[in-house]
């Protein structure tokens, strides 16, 4: 029960903190919170751990020279940029 209370208070504190931060102008006090919030997490960036060649021509070149088939991920907007 105590643990449940602690969890509830932690959640409430987090909500109050976020609500409070939202009401405040950007400043040295709030900057780090927002920078960390906005930065994609390691898990979100997992797709970037793959050794993507950043263009189709680079992929064709390495496919030919390294003797492996090409796997091209082609999207409206560069998959490693704004897609």
């Amino acid at each position, binding site marked *: 029960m105590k643990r449940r209370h602690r969890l509830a208070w932690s959640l409430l504190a987090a909500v109050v903190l*976020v*609500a409070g931060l*939202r009401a405040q*102008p*950007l*400043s040295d006090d709030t*900057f780090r919170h*927002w*920078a960390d*919030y*906005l*930065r*994609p997490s390691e*898990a*979100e960036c*997992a*797709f970037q751990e*793959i*050794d*993507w*060649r*950043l*263009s*189709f*021509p*680079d*992929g*064709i*070149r*390495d*496919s*030919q020279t*390294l003797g*492996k*088939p*090409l*796997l*091209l*991920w*082609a*999207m*409206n*907007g*560069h*998959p*490693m*940029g*704004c*897609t």
Partner: protein
Amino acid sequence: MIARRSVWSDDRVKALLAEFIPAADEVHSLQSGKDPAALHFQKIAEQGHYAGRTKPTNTRQGIYAAAPSGILLASMNNNRPEQVAKMLEQALAKWRSLSDDERYLPSDQLKTISQARRWERLYPQDGLAIRVNSRDLPRDNPTIKGWRADAWNQDFLWLKRDEAIALCPQSNEVGAARPWPDAIARRLARLNLVDNVRGQIPAFADEDIEHVTITSTIESIDDASVTIRIDGRSRTVKKGRWSIDGFKDMDNPTEQERGIDVELFGHAVFDRSTQRFVEFEVVAIGTRWGATQYNGRADDRDPNGIGFLLSLADDHERVPPASIWAYGW
């Protein structure tokens, strides 16, 4: 965008990818270009899942496995890792059945494809490349579910060397301030401070900028570097008729308005000897509203919080900004 989280972090897909050369690229210029690289892509794509497609759009986006010669091994446009893994296995089986003559390009053809003129050539090697991440701010009563609830995106802002240097006050006085050159502030406001959180969106036009001012102020200075504070505001608003719901209303554009109103704040460190930024971290926080055809906001057009983080791009992230065509470089 969904594939970023669902497909490429899957262990089976990652293991199979070791047998391939993975490449990522923007499809529009490949499917519509006339240069040798674009034509080679079109040869592959016209054997694939969207071959000949014109409706609802002519996009050729997707995942293609191919021999460098241009023989398609397998393709699909799918965000399910198990389906992609199956496709990769089929592709490998077909690759193994090909002779070397069938697999590879004549060397002169490879050279022509490799020499295609691409936006990457404009990468500001001695200037400044900034990564711009975007994300919705927390909401009091979140109603959006699924991947859209915690979506994020990224784009890039490139500055040539002289443009980057112009962001730092030319003074030895703490407190000295310098407004960003109008062209740079407007480039950021038009092309990067856009609601791309859930998908691509057209840039704002210059006339959509109601207000943008960004100022660098010296916080500290020594022989090696200048530390600056960056702050400012930007407000852009576009009105007109356009579609907002993907294919559903693509033939029925309606009166719309979209906008971004943000405050910017952050810090950067400028190396005095190399005349380059070695640290750069700026946050933009504020409000977005409206929707465009492919940005996943059709049911979420009311004003709500949006944030952007501007930080130094890694040297290997040489991905052209989505709207580099607007740079005039």
